[in-house]
């Protein structure tokens, strides 16, 4: 019962945060809406016994990614009000149709697929501790894990390159 109350509460917070993110005219409010959604998803991970993923969600998304977003918003976005009100109404209507149609299609597709448990007598209790995740991650998935190390290194180098070579004159770039 407590599980149900927690799910309804934080699912509502997640949905309200997501909707306020795409409708807020101020970019900082959008970031705050996304932050609320990410915290709610972290709590839902705890409900699903994925404790380590929940901790990583809070540290990486609510901590690092949102801080980065807010830094860039302070540099770029705040003094430029978005032309949200200037959109053609037909585009908003079509967007609503596409989003609702996509939701319906995903729900239908989900109904068509039968998710079976790993045995007929109920699923074994899953405890997503750091130890359990690490056993799998550093055992079966060692090579993909190492390739994510490469990915992060390349991303860091690329970001530094983008910031460092910004003084190239525009004429040389366009020629």
């Amino acid at each position, binding site marked *: 019962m407590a599980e149900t109350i927690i799910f309804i509460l934080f699912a509502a917070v997640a949905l309200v945060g997501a909707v306020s993110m795409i409708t807020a005219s101020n970019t900082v409010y959008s970031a705050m809406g996304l932050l609320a959604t990410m915290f709610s998803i972290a709590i839902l991970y705890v409900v699903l016994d994925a404790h380590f993923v929940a901790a990583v969600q809070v540290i990486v998304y609510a901590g690092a990614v949102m801080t980065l977003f807010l830094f860039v918003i302070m540099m770029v976005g705040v003094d430029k009000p978005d032309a949200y009100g200037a959109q053609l109404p037909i585009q908003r209507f079509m967007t609503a149709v596409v989003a609702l149609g*996509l939701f319906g299609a995903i729900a239908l597709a989900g109904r068509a697929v039968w998710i079976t448990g790993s045995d007929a007598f109920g699923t074994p209790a899953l405890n997503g501790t750091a130890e359990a995740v690490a056993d799998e991650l550093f055992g079966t998935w060692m090579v993909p894990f190492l390739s994510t190390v490469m990915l992060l290194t390349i991303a860091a180098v690329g970001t530094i390159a983008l910031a460092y070579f*910004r003084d190239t004159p525009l004429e040389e770039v366009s020629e």
Partner: protein
Amino acid sequence: MTVTVTWFLLLAAALFSIGVAGVLIRRNALVMFMSIELMLNAVNLTFVAVSHELGLIEGQVAALFVMVVAAAEVTVGLAIIVAVFRTRSTANVDELAEMSG
């Protein structure tokens, strides 16, 4: 009334659809980028919910990999937005259409 995996999957589908709507309706590059993050989060929720339902830890490992890719993507994407802002002084994608034919 107990929470089943279907509720989580429907919530994830709703969050993904809201993310798609955000990419379609907003013209601010930062908000579009946040919508993409929302879609990645919705997919992560699906992974973890199904992992719980099936009793397999692989779903949580997949969610961690998605988080790593999302972190790399945010770093590079925000660097591109800042670089574009420094040359064009705007983050509105409608005004960044020089390459369209």
